């Protein structure tokens, strides 16, 4: 009986993965001999719908699927407030900021974030610093996807585990990219989101079948006085603000943004994004049920998996496993497409378009293998890796705002600001040093902005560099 269940689970999982490959093959029709720009940013032709599905990949990522219920299971209300709040507030930030970034990308024909800095300031040194820090802080992101894939697929009982599982996932992610470039994560995202939404809703319905919302309320624990202590409030508010500002500064989000057809297609995509987060109340119910039910978890990240395994029949478990796998693979493919050209275009120089594309693919293979190795040796620090990535990538914000709106900012001031923000943010975080319970990255960001503004005042760039808003 158990073997039959495993077979059903595996059959459904395999069918969905095969279907996703079919979608990728279809997506490359008419673009098989794609040039560099088409491969990495779809020739800036994605309308609101494809852009929407690419951009919301972050919302229903494998990290979200594990971290949100896991965080509620482990920390309760403070975690939920921060997680819901930062994803939500990043949307209006994107509505106003992203059309400007897209305009800068169009102006400089940018494929990567460093292209914006190189185009605006013409400084090879600044381009290199942005490139190297972007690569450095993208490495944990890939590791996190593999670690998440391992937790989900092993937890759901797939017969392949460990190194073989991660290498298969890496092979699949590379196949997606090699076949269709950025069109692969865009089109597969649609299938992924349908599966993820179905998985979460079905699991939540199963929870409500065995428990009422009122009986689950006990999962939040005793409520006396404030729900959050003053340090928790300061940390939640500062982290919420920091990550809402930083979500779109990731080179990954940036490369998705560059695929847009117009500023208005970006605005239209942003408007409906908050409604798309309606799954989080359902995920919270699932986490509460696991908490109230008292099932012992080896790690909080297993909260969703335990609920699925306990409540759903085998074919549906296979469907959930496939949805979760696709969510990891889509983000992984996106990261690869962001990091490849960072090396072949911004780190190396003098390569023609074909060499840049081939070079990027070599870098992608190396990045995937490195991420597999890191995930196999450090899977227990997912939340730390997530925080470190945000701390690093958000430091690009002052420089991006300078590209959009500031005159006479020298590239040296921007570079020193980024480095100062990185050192202070990552240093406080890794050294476990708390400054009034304010988010470490936000402190780094404030220092970064101060360095940029003071630098612009005491050593202004005398060249005529027109910001994008005046161009």
């Amino acid at each position, binding site marked *: 009986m158990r073997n039959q269940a495993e077979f059903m689970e595996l059959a459904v999982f395999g069918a969905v993965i095969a279907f996703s490959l079919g979608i990728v093959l279809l997506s490359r029709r008419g673009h098989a001999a794609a040039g560099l720009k088409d491969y990495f940013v779809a020739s800036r032709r994605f309308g609101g719908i494809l852009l929407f599905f690419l951009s919301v990949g972050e919302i229903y990522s494998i990290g979200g699927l594990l971290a949100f219920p896991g965080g509620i299971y482990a920390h309760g*209300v403070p975690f*939920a*407030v921060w997680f*819901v*709040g930062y994803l*939500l*507030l990043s*949307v*209006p*930030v994107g*509505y*106003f900021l992203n*059309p*400007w970034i*897209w*305009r800068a990308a169009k102006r400089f024909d940018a494929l990567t974030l460093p292209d914006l800095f190189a185009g605006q300031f013409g400084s090879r040194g600044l381009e290199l610093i942005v490139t190297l820090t972007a690569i450095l802080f993208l490495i944990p992101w890939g590791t996190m996807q593999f670690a998440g894939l391992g937790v989900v697929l092993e937890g759901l009982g797939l017969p392949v585990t460990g190194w073989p599982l991660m290498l298969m996932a890496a092979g699949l992610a590379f196949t997606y990219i090699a076949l269709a470039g950025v069109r692969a994560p865009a089109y597969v995202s649609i299938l992924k989101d349908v599966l993820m939404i179905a998985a979460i809703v079905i699991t939540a319905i199963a929870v409500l079948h065995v428990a*009422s*919302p*009122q*009986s*689950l*309320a006990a999962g*939040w624990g005793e*409520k006396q006085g*404030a*729900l*959050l202590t003053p340090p928790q*409030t300061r940390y*939640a*508010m500062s982290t*919420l*603000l920091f990550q*809402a500002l930083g979500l779109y500064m990731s080179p990954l989000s940036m490369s998705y943004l560059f695929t847009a057809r*117009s*500023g*208005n297609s970006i*605005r*239209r995509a*942003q*408007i*409906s*994004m*908050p*409604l798309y*987060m*309606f799954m*989080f*109340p359902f995920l*919270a*119910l699932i986490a*509460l049920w696991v908490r109230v039910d008292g099932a012992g978890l080896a790690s909080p990240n297993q909260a969703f998996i335990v609920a699925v395994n306990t409540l759903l029949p085998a074919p549906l478990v296979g469907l959930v496993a496939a949805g979760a796998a696709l969510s990891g693979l889509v983000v992984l493919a996106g990261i690869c497409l962001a990091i490849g050209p960072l090396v072949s275009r911004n780190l190396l120089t003098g390569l023609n378009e074909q060499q840049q594309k081939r070079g990027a693919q070599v870098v992608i293979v190396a990045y995937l293998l490195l991420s597999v190795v890191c995930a196999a040796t450090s899977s227990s620090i997912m939340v730390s890796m997530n925080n470190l990535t945000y701390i690093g990538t958000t430091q690009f914000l002052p420089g991006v705002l300078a590209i959009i709106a500031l005159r006479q900012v020298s590239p040296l001031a921007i570079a020193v600001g980024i480095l100062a923000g990185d050192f202070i943010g990552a240093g406080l975080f890794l050294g476990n040093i708390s400054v009034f319970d304010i988010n470490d990255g936000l402190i780094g960001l404030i220092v970064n902005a101060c360095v940029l503004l003071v630098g612009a005042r005491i050593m202004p760039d005398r060249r005529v560099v027109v910001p994008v808003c005046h161009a």
Partner: protein
Amino acid sequence: MAGSANLMSRPAARYFVGLGLPFAGVCGLIPVLEQVHLDFAGMPFILNWMFAWYILTTLCLSACWCLFDRNRKDEEPG
């Protein structure tokens, strides 16, 4: 029509509706909301409030789009 043109020329109103209201509602009210001990559907009030902002933020951005941005030329961000 004149009123509409007047509204279009007010970027402060646009930022207030699209950015100010969601930030005040979600982030600014946390210190107040954490003191409220009401449950609805098994969730603390503060979380129900956050979840309500899924709809309210969409409404704010829709208002921005309809009032300020819908007629903006595609090449003209802001």
